[in-house]
């Protein structure tokens, strides 16, 4: 895994086996560019396709409808992608194992139903209802994982069966009512629809996050220096932090013209950041990548493969449940079609478009955020144009296919480049 700034020192020159390890040169601008180009040729496309795709989407929709990029619509976009983004974060984990979870849509719908019934019909406090819904997801995912690992049923089949079973459970929980509205003045709807960061909070975050980023990078850098390892130029992390600061300030300024940064969007990004940390900085995350890369190697290295896979399915279903509750809070109701229709395909599409390989063991940083932005922007733009959902399905499906094709071609490129 690339985790530190000098990790990408695998440039064409360093590929010469005659160059011994300790001589791996610190990064210089020219060298970094050369590495990047070599990486592109080798099938390592990075986030380039997503960024280009996002740019194309923005240009097309903005030229068709000038309200696309206004603050009101961008705040809506943030509200819209929170739920699918949280579900896609869970899907990313499962895809990293080289498995699939087709039940995330149904599980999110069931969680929405549990939340509404407990809060509205049973009168339980919002927090209790939320925890119960999330715990339900955890139990469901554990069941998937156990059937998958202990009985050896392919994950595709386990979760396909789950798709139907949990949808049935959702209808059962909702009972004859069909639709349960969350109380408009209740905490749940208030949080999902009307809670935004205050200006000082959002601007504060926009400044604090780059500072923390820079501090972490510099701490790593000084520890590498003490360990006698090569380090890159100090201006690289500084420039990265400044860029991050500029982007965050621009986003916050734009969103603050309207209602501001929605709390549910912050929840999504916080969950994603936590998952990214666990994946890339802890032994658990390293084990997930290892199982996705070569399960036999992971087993021989002493990783408890079955327990790990079960836990990943459990976390994925729990995140699907959390996403479902976020969707219910934003919409203000749970009904029989909560989590139905394109929830599943959007979540998987977001993960894959963001750069998580379907072949296991590979994922870009923050792929769920980038992918959710792409999927959300398409849905949002088509809504603005008042196009039918028929067209929306066709376009979303095509974009997903495109992302998978890029993934497959890139993985072929990796093979031919010996990666």
């Amino acid at each position: 895994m690339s985790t530190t700034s000098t990790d990408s020192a695998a440039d064409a020159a360093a590929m010469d086996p005659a160059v011994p390890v300790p001589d791996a040169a610190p990064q210089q601008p020219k060298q970094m560019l050369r590495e990047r180009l070599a990486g592109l040729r080798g099938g390592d496309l990075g986030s380039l396709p997503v960024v280009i795709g996002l740019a194309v989407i923005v240009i097309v929709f903005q030229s068709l409808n000038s309200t696309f990029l206004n603050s009101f619509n961008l705040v809506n976009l943030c509200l819209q992608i929170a739920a699918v983004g949280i579900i896609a974060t869970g899907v990313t984990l499962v895809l990293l194992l080289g498995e699939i979870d087709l039940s995330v849509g149904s599980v999110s719908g069931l969680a929405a139903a549990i939340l509404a019934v407990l809060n509205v019909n049973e009168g339980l406090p919002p927090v209790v209802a939320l925890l119960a819904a999330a715990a339900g997801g955890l139990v469901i995912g554990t069941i998937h994982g156990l059937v998958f690992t202990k009985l050896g049923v392919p994950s595709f089949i386990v979760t396909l069966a789950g798709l139907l079973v949990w949808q049935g459970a959702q209808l059962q929980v909702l009972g004859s009512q069909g639709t349960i509205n969350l109380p408009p003045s209740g905490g749940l709807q208030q949080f999902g629809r009307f809670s935004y960061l205050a200006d000082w909070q959002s601007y504060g975050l926009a400044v604090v996050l780059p500072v923390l980023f820079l501090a972490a990078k510099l701490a790593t850098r000084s520890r590498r220096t003490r360990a006698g390892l090569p380090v890159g130029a100090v201006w690289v992390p500084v420039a990265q932090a400044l860029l991050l600061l500029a982007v965050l300030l621009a986003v916050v300024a734009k969103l603050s013209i309207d209602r501001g940064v929605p709390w549910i969007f912050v929840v999504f990004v916080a969950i994603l950041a936590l998952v990214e940390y666990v994946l890339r900085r802890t032994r658990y995350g390293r084990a997930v990548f290892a199982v996705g890369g070569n399960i036999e190697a992971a087993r021989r290295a002493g990783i408890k493969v079955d327990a790990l896979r079960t836990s990943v399915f459990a976390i994925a279903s729990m995140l699907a449940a959390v996403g479902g509750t976020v969707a219910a809070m934003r919409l203000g109701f749970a009904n029989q079609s909560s989590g139905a229709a394109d929830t599943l395909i959007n979540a998987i599409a977001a993960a894959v478009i963001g750069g998580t390989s379907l072949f296991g063991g590979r994922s870009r940083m923050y792929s769920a955020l980038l992918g959710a932005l792409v999927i959300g922007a398409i849905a949002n733009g088509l809504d603005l144009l008042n196009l039918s959902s028929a067209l929306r399905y066709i376009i979303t499906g095509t974009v997903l296919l495109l992302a998978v094709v890029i993934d497959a071609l890139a993985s072929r490129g990796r093979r031919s480049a010996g990666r």
Partner: protein
Amino acid sequence: MSADVLSTEPHTPPVGTSLLSLTGIQKRFGAVRALSDVDFEVRAGEVVALVGDNGAGKSTLVKVMSGAGPADEGSYRIEGREVSIGTPAAASAHGVATVFQDLAICDNLDVVANLFLGRELTRGVALDEPEMERRTVELLEQLSVKLPSVRIPMASLSGGQRQSVAIVRALLGSPKVVLLDEPTAALGVAQTAQVLNLVERLRERGLGVVLISHNMADVMAVADRAVVLRLGRVAGRFDMADVSREQLVATITGADTNVVSERAARVAGRSAAAPAGTEGNQA
């Protein structure tokens, strides 16, 4: 994990001490006798080649030693003490590390991550990447293993480099004996040389190395002794100093039971080739 697991100091007994010794090993698969009455010994600071034709019992014997397929009968001694090795974990606990032919490497992870897979160093909950990288660089340097970078995915490395990393990983557990299963199969000439250099460095560090190979050139190049298996029995034991490749091949194929054994009888005394069944008096 403690630092001593990654100790790169030689920690094995003086050269010549018996590290691993098998006596009277029997292994059956149904009606097939895969190994009958096999004795085998590895001492500190030597490379023992285990050779034989396909089906001779090499893999079965490796599985006995690595704990993947314990013997039905016979004794297994580590440094003279009788041990019971029923699982790969038990074997590595007793200092026997195995590098299988399929290297068990995660191509999507980099060299550091592969070396420390399953035994990562941490600071609190977070991985201690600088420390793991430092030790990786140090270990590779000590063993003169040259890689373009320790931070590139394994998939970018050549076959010889991948094999070297797999061997170095086996060393992280501080083993006394290393079993190498066909380490040079499918490698080019230069890459084979890299791996053989590494094997010699293991010997210099006082480890006992068992080299399972089909390649007579490699065996002649690095082994100190060779044990030939044929049809589940030890067909011959040789000191590489006084055996020719032809004698070795003859023993492997069974051609020695006539011409070569007669010749061996004639030069008795410093006889290199002993026919099957009389291996009790070998070096």
